[in-house]
């Protein structure tokens, strides 16, 4: 006699296990926390905390709500970062070229937020922009004014910042797209400026 009971039990285990795996990965779409966040944001845009206070590389104090009405491309950096932030800076400089028209029209702002506000003074932020070959238009580097502001940004954008033993930070490397209503609508790969520019172009056209 074929082992029917073992077959039935195995099928049940397979179905239950498959269902658990599917539920834990948004239907086999997202296996990491980062992709899960991307999937969730695309489906349900998240309002970003508007009252977070920032100090820019020109020592101006602003709130995130001051940037309402414009599209925002946000990344998270720290000026001592030797690896990813350099790549992020290069991506943003390329985006300044690719998206010069909406920037000139006042429809788009690029915003680099420091996750190391104690160290990243306005002078250091300005030096970071210079190193990344800032084209001089539409790119703001800023640090959160207080610890609370940084925490609210981390929560609002779903950014995880893990301090490393060497005074470095492991942090999420991505470009966050915020619409003029102040909602986080998409999280994009930071490696490819073309993809980011294309995503923004299609949003601006629609």
């Amino acid at each position, binding site marked *: 006699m074929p082992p029917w*009971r073992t077959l039935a039990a195995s099928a049940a285990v397979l179905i239950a296990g498959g269902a658990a795996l599917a539920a834990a990965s948004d239907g086999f779409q997202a296996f990491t926390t980062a992709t899960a966040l991307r999937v969730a944001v695309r489906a349900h845009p998240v309002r970003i905390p508007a009252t977070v206070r920032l100090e820019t590389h020109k020592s101006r104090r602003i709130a995130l709500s001051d940037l309402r009405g414009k599209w925002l491309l946000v990344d998270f950096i720290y000026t001592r970062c030797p690896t990813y932030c350099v790549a992020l800076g290069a991506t943003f400089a390329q985006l300044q070229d690719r998206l010069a028209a909406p920037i000139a029209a006042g429809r788009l702002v690029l915003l680099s937020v420091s996750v190391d506000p104690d160290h990243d003074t306005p002078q250091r932020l300005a030096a970071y922009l210079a190193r990344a070959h800032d084209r001089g238009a539409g790119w703001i580097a800023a640090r959160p004014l207080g610890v609370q502001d940084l925490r609210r940004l981390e929560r609002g954008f779903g950014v995880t910042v893990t301090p490393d033993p060497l005074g470095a930070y492991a942090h999420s490397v991505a470009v966050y797209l915020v619409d003029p209503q102040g909602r986080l609508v998409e999280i994009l790969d930071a490696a490819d400026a073309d993809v980011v520019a294309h995503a923004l172009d299609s949003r601006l056209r629609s």
Partner: protein
Amino acid sequence: MSRHWRAALLFALLLLPPIRKALEASMTWQMLAQIPLLALAGAWLGAAVPPRLRAAIDPWNRHGVTGLLLATLTAAFWMLPRTLDAAGTRATVDLAKYLSVSLLLGLPLALSWPRAGFVVRGVFVLELIATCFRLGWLYLATPVRLCTIYPFSDQRRLGEYLIALGVALVVWIAGKLFWGGVGRRRPQPVFTARGAWRNAGTNPAPRARDGVPAPLSRFFRAR
């Protein structure tokens, strides 16, 4: 100390906040120490399963297939970077990890392994080795952090250790194949499907069993 007490003690030790924190502070310790130890606690618990219950489970777990499938799927679940992140940040998810790794991975593995024949065991060990190499390679090759709560360096170190573990498993299995061990087993009490303890002995005389013709039955030793 009997095995189920050992299991309970190990489980309680792993649950102690300082030990739990230390093992979960790194991806490497969590995957190569905490999870295997939790599975071991569950496996020890297997000795406490009364023979009557074992006999009841038996027909549902021929050749240990169902149990090994359950163990594999449980392992796969906790291999998702997302679920490890969630376990590291939420206590309820971590508790679910503790319970499922011991009860749905270690325990079924202990109940099923002695019942698995040469072929089933071979498939399982091969898949384990392949998983070590696959994950190790992935961790070494990927340019991004897969778990958001662990640093990149930790992920790379785990990748190296997994490759080393894969190599060690290959060497071990090759040693077993070349210098014996496979097919030659120490006599041990084995619980048969017919409901009685008996001594399996070393290389029992071939006889027709479970519909397998007599000459073949010595190669398909599943009970």
